[in-house]
Structures are given as structure tokens and as C-alpha cells.
């Protein structure tokens, strides 16, 4: 069981965060999380390397979850993504 605040803290200390959303998909049980992470640190990294980076960063926490999914963006990509949503 992983605490949402702990998860957030781990992310924020490791890289510059423009935008972060964390959703507990296990209805409050802390066993399954989905995150949206926007950071300029992702610039120049392809999708696989971004995911690997996050998986590595949160290795200890992910090991205690049943499921973990992530969406990653650079700040520019996130702007474009939001524009498309309208």
C-alpha cells in the first residue's frame, strides 16, 4: 500500500514538474495508480526512455503496487494535448 503524498514527494524531488496528476485507481486502497507527469526533463527523450526513467525513479513504490500506468509530456506537448481535448 502506497501513500499518495509519498508518491508525489518522490516525483517532485527527482525532477522539475510543470504539472502532475496522480489518480488512485484502487478506490482509495493505494494499490493501483495512474499518473500524468509533465516535465521539461522529458525533452529529447523518447517515450520508452521516459517511462523507464519514471519506473526506475519509483521502483520501490511500484514494487508495492498491483498496477501502475503513466502518461508523460514535455510542457509543449502537454499544451498541444490540452488544445486537442477541447
Amino acid at each position, binding site marked *: 500500500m502506497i501513500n499518495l503524498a509519498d508518491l508525489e514527494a518522490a516525483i517532485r524531488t527527482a525532477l522539475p514538474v510543470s504539472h502532475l496528476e496522480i489518480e488512485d485507481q484502487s478506490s482509495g486502497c493505494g494499490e493501483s495508480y495512474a499518473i500524468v507527469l509533465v516535465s521539461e526533463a522529458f525533452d529529447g527523450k*523518447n*517515450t*520508452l526512455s521516459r*517511462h*523507464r526513467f519514471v519506473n526506475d525513479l519509483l521502483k520501490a513504490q511500484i514494487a508495492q503496487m498491483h498496477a501502475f*500506468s*503513466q*502518461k*508523460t509530456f514535455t510542457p509543449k*506537448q502537454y499544451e498541444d*494535448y490540452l488544445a486537442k481535448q477541447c
Partner: protein
Amino acid sequence: MSNYHEVTSPSHFQQLLSSDLNRVSVLNFWAEWAEPCKQMNAVTVELANKYPSVLFLQIEAEAQSDISESFDIESVPSLILLRGHTLLQRISGADAPALTTAVAKFASSPSINPLSRTDLPPAKASNAVIEVADPSEDLESRMTRLMNQSKVVLFMKGSPDAPRCGFSRRMTGLLRDQKVDFTHFDILSDEGVRQGLKKRNDWPTFPQLIVNGEFVGGLDIVQEMVENGEFVETLAV
């Protein structure tokens, strides 16, 4: 009586049997000089009358030696019960009660009934590449070969038409939506490859998508790549 015949030749025999392969037949191997055969012959006539759906074939054992040999007949009378070409029972000797019981039993059991029926056309052939196991191939080489078996290879649980996990199912759906040609490998069928690929690709889960022999990602990653345009780029190589 149309269900009672004296067999005159092997081809006559085949013709009679093949006319209905669901039908039970009683083959009565007999000989003129063997007294007990008279009794069994009488019994078969009686049974033929009683069970019109059963085929009764009188086979003079010595005259039809080819047929006798093919059934390993060593003595007369001998009775063979078949359904189509399937052997149901052999009876050696003039055992009238055994024959009567056997005919009663098999004549009343249903002929082949399908367990299910469908109107659907046959499923499209699977994309799995047929493998020939080579014992000398070690796991590393095997994984390399599998990852290169086609431009796009999906390592998944189950198969595209019968996925065994939600993530594998969604990945298949995504690839089909993107109109990508791919082959697959069912990692549930091979524990060595399953564990080996996790280490090799440094990725803990399945499905795993491989393009041009290189690991691209799992479901999340491929989904993201589709959304940000990276997927099309990867395939264009």
C-alpha cells in the same frame, strides 16, 4: 431384407460399410463345416429382423480370406461389431446371448451427435509463425530469432483472437486500429522466453511490442506513442 447381406468380395464389403458410416454393423464370420455357425447364423437373421437399422454381413471366412485376415479371424464363428470403421466389440464362438446383448446395447446408443454447431465461417488463420523446435538453439538465440520473426512482433498472453489478459487484448486492438501487420508469440506457452524477455528487454511485464528486432514498449508506451506521433515514426524505419 435390406440390412442383411452375404458379402461376395472385399469391394462389396467396403461398399456396404461406407454407405453409412454412422451405422452399426455386425460381421458374422462363418464356415459351412463348422456346426456352431448354424446357430449363430440363425441368431443373426433374427437380430437383423429385429434391428433394421443395424447392418448384418455374412462373411464366409475361407472364401473371403482377405477380409478374415484383416480382422484377424482365427476361428469360426466370430462376430465383429463395428460402427462405421470403429471396432465396438469382438465375440468369439457361438455366444448367442453375448451377441444379442451387444447388438441391443450398440443399436440403441446414439450415432455421432455434434457437441456444438455453428453457422460462422472458419476463423481467419492465425498469424503465429510455426516453430520447429531446435534443441541446440540456446535461449538467447531463440529470443533473438523470435524478436526478428517479422518487422512487428507482439509478445503477449494468449493470441490476438484469444487474448488471455486485458492489457494484451487492448494492445492487439490498438495494433489492429492502427492497421499494423504483426505476428505474435504467446509467452504463456514458454516460461523460458517469458522470463528471458523480461531480463533481455529490461521490462517487467507483458505485452511487449518489438519493432525491427528492438523493444518498443508495453501498452502504456505504445498508446502514448500513437498519441504523440512517435509510433508512426518508429514503423516507418
